[in-house]
Structures are given as structure tokens and as C-alpha cells.
């Protein structure tokens, strides 16, 4: 496997709490790698640490270079897109302004964004804070797709969405995975089954399983033991 991202001995403290206790995993170039685990085990913190949004120690090698000490904006400029857990759209800015703010490339991929989310074109002048949860998720994903990123970190994109929208997000992720490598934190195993090639399971701040997603999801006993479902 050619690793685009290699994480080793990643530690994060939030106050007195030792959230990540030496996380190790690799992300293959291409496809979707899902990060799974029960609530509160450190999945979101892992993505935030990779982005430099949480203070971390350890090693994060992306595309052959160490980025563990690199500031967030430089990590992004090296081709890493981020879709945060709570969307974090700028509520006071219009949809158009949210997208314009995310532009980095000379030719932002508005054709792709409008192809995937035609609704955003119609709502360009609408303040993002007045959009529904699903529409805000579209904006959050669109911001990351606007530039030609090599790696996308997507945190629970289906959280709080209606079943119809969950299917829509899964369709978008499938399409995105054809264009770029995706690290996906996701609780919905149906979505994981549909889009993920690899799976990494985290428990209490450590990786407890890594391997093909299909093998993990086929083993109900393992899923039950690691994720508490099934």
C-alpha cells in the first residue's frame, strides 16, 4: 500500500485529559479510509490534530513530509481539505461568500461544486446561517471540494441529517472518492459500507483495529465488540 498519510504515536491532551494516547495508522493514496469508534473515543480529535487545530505531539507524515509542527493554513495549502463535524459554515456570510473565502486555486472547481450541489447556485445570496442542516453540510463539503485537494478529512457528514440526505451525502462521498483520498469519520455504518475501502477503529485514544472495511463490517461479533453495535 502506498501511504499518502502516515500517523504514528499521535498524542493530544485537552486540559488534564489525555485524549489521544499514541494513535498509529496509515491512509492509502486513493479511496476512503473510515475512522470508526464509539462516541468520545477521539475520532474528531484525531482529525483536528491532523489539521493542526488541536495541539499535538507525535509524527504525521503527509505526502512524504512531516507536518506535525506545521500550522493549519500551511497544511491546507499543501492540499488538505477539511469538513468539520458541526459544518462550521460562516452564518453571517452568504453561501457565495462562504465559497469565495475557500478559494485557493487559480480556477476553483465551481463546475464540480454546482454539479454536485445545484441548490447552492440558487441560494448563492442567502446567508448560510439561514440554511437547513443539510444545506449547510453541502456548503461545508463544497468549500473543501472547491480546490484540487489531495486529501480530504471529513468529520461525520451525515450527523443529524434525514435519511434521504444521508443517502445524498453518501452519493457525494462516492463521487468525491473518485477524485481524491478521503479520511472519513462516520457513525453510520451503512454509509461506511457503501463508500469506505479501509477502516481504522479507535478506542480510548488508541487504534485497536485497522484493515479492509468490508472484512470488519462482515464480522458482526467484531463490530459489536469494537463499536458496540450490530
Amino acid at each position, binding site marked *: 500500500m502506498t501511504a499518502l498519510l502516515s500517523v504514528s504515536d499521535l498524542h493530544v491532551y485537552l486540559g488534564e485529559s489525555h485524549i489521544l494516547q499514541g494513535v498509529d495508522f496509515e491512509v492509502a493514496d486513493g479511496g476512503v479510509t473510515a475512522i470508526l469508534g464509539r462516541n468520545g473515543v477521539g475520532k474528531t480529535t484525531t482529525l483536528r490534530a491532523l*489539521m493542526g*487545530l488541536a495541539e499535538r505531539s507525535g509524527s504525521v507524515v503527509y505526502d512524504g513530509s512531516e507536518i506535525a509542527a506545521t*500550522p*493549519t*493554513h500551511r497544511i*491546507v*495549502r499543501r492540499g488538505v481539505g*477539511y469538513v*468539520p463535524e458541526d459544518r*462550521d459554515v*460562516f*452564518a*453571517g*456570510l452568504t453561501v457565495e*461568500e462562504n465559497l*469565495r*473565502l*475557500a478559494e*485557493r486555486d487559480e480556477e476553483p472547481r465551481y463546475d464540480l461544486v454546482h454539479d454536485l450541489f445545484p441548490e447552492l447556485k440558487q441560494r448563492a445570496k442567502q446567508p448560510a446561517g439561514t440554511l437547513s442542516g443539510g444545506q449547510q453540510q453541502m456548503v461545508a463539503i463544497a*468549500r473543501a471540494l472547491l*480546490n484540487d485537494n489531495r486529501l480530504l478529512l471529513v468529520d461525520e457528514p451525515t450527523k443529524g441529517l434525514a435519511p434521504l440526505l444521508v443517502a445524498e451525502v453518501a452519493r457525494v462521498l462516492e463521487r468525491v472518492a473518485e477524485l481524491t483520498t478521503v479520511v472519513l469519520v462516520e457513525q453510520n455504518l451503512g454509509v461506511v459500507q457503501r463508500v469506505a475501502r479501509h477502516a481504522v477503529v479507535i478506542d480510548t485514544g488508541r487504534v485497536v483495529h485497522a484493515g479492509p472495511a468490508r472484512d470488519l463490517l462482515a464480522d458482526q461479533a467484531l463490530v459489536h465488540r469494537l463499536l458496540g453495535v450490530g
Partner: protein
Amino acid sequence: MSTFVLLTITGLGLGALYFLIASGLSLIYGLMGVLNFAHGAFLTVGAYAMWFTESKLNGVAVLPRFLLGSLVALVVGALFAALVELVLIRPLYRRHIEQVLVTVGLGLATTALVVSIWGNDARSVPAPTWLGETTTVLGAHIPNDRWLLIAAALVVLGGLEAFLRRTRYGLIIRAGVENRAMVTALGIDVRRAFTLVFAIGGVAAALAGVLSNVYFSTVDPARGTSLLIFAFIVVVIGGLGSLRGTAAAAIVVGLVQQYANYYASTGLGDLSVVLLLGLVLLARPRGLSGSFA
């Protein structure tokens, strides 16, 4: 009637002065979460830069001296503020207690430095003749410097609104006020916006320094500190981080101060502003406008 008109225009002029100081304070807090107690020092530096430049141009006519002095004040204000951000504030992001200590210390040190160089006494500041004359409106003789104050505040408000709405840096600042971390997660080095916002705040405060020289006809070392207190009240009433809220609050504070001083008792103006602050905070804890611009 003429008294009421005079009080109203004077109150609006005073509110304009407060807005010029408070706008920078509000933007700095909104974007960076920094309570800049050194903001009064920006005003003092601007006011003295203007007076000093004017005093060195003795043979020149008053108008060009005034304009050149004002220009120097704005440049010095911008450079001083940017330097403060780069040298003192940048190493202390997210360390709020240290920020307060450093900015309070800088404010005190600037005043002490000015006193040690030019003394405690107020110095007279020459201004163009027209500013010392009056214009009659509805029977009230309005000092012309009030119009200049109001016009300057309107230009700054319009300029800031245009900057925030029509430029990329304005977009970054508006987004940064909402969620700074997410701005960096879009690949933007938000620290540049920090320096720019400080420089803008420095220009506006220096302009307030220039106009306070005109309003009071003098410059003195305590000017920045005394006006800063009212600017903070304006920012809190307006809603931290809200430019329009700051403008509205500046008008209200300026008018209340003038009306209370005249219709109640001289000296009650300051007290009434503090009471107003308490009332607003009780009714709307996040100020008149909890959101940004």
C-alpha cells in the same frame, strides 16, 4: 429649540469621536478576542504626532499644516498599532491575562513617555479658521468642528463597511469574527488580518486624536485614557465585534451625555452613561447587537 439642536449636534459630534475610537476596539476584540487597553495610546500618539508636525511647520499656512499634521498622525497611528500587534500581542494570543497586562502597561507607559517629553500641560493646537466658526441651524449656532467630526465618522463607517463587504480581507475579517479556527482551516493565514485590523484601528484612533485636538483646541497626555473609558462603554453597549452596533451606541452615548449635562446637572453626563451601560446590559447582556455588522 435652538439649545436642543445645539445639544443634539454636539452630542452627535461627541458620538462620532467615540465611534472613531470604538470602531477599532470593536473590530480587534471581534476578530482576535483581544481587549486592547492600549487603544487610548494610539489616540494619544496620533494626537501628539499631529501637534508635533504642526509645531515644526511654523512658517506654513494653517490649512496645509493642519492637513499635513493630520496625514502624519494617521500614518504614525497605523505604524504604531501594527508594531504593537507584531511585537507585543502576537506572542500572547490566547493568553488573555497577559494581553490585558501588556496593553494596560503600554497605555500607562505611553502616557508617561509623553509627559516626560512634553510635560503635563495641555498644548494649544491651531486649526483652520472655518473650524472655529459657527453655522446657524434652526437658530442654533453650531461650531463647525462638529460637522467635521460627524463627517469623518460617516466616512470611516462607510469606508469600513465597504472594506468589510467588498474586499477579500474584509471577508476574512468578517469570517474570522465568527470562527477564527475555521478561517485557518480554509488555508488562510489569519495573522495577517490581525495586523491589518490593528493598523485600521490605529488609523481610526489617530484620526480621533486629530479631531479631539480640534474639538478641545488643545492636546494633552491624558486624552487617550479619558476617551478610552467611553469608547469601551460604547463597544460594550453596541455589542462586542459589531461595527453597526458600535455606531448606534456611540450616537446614543454622545447624546445622553450632552442632554444629561444640560437638562439634569453638569457632571451628570458621565454618570448617566454608566447608568445606560448598566440598563443595556440588564436588558441585552450581549449589547444592542450581539452579532457582527
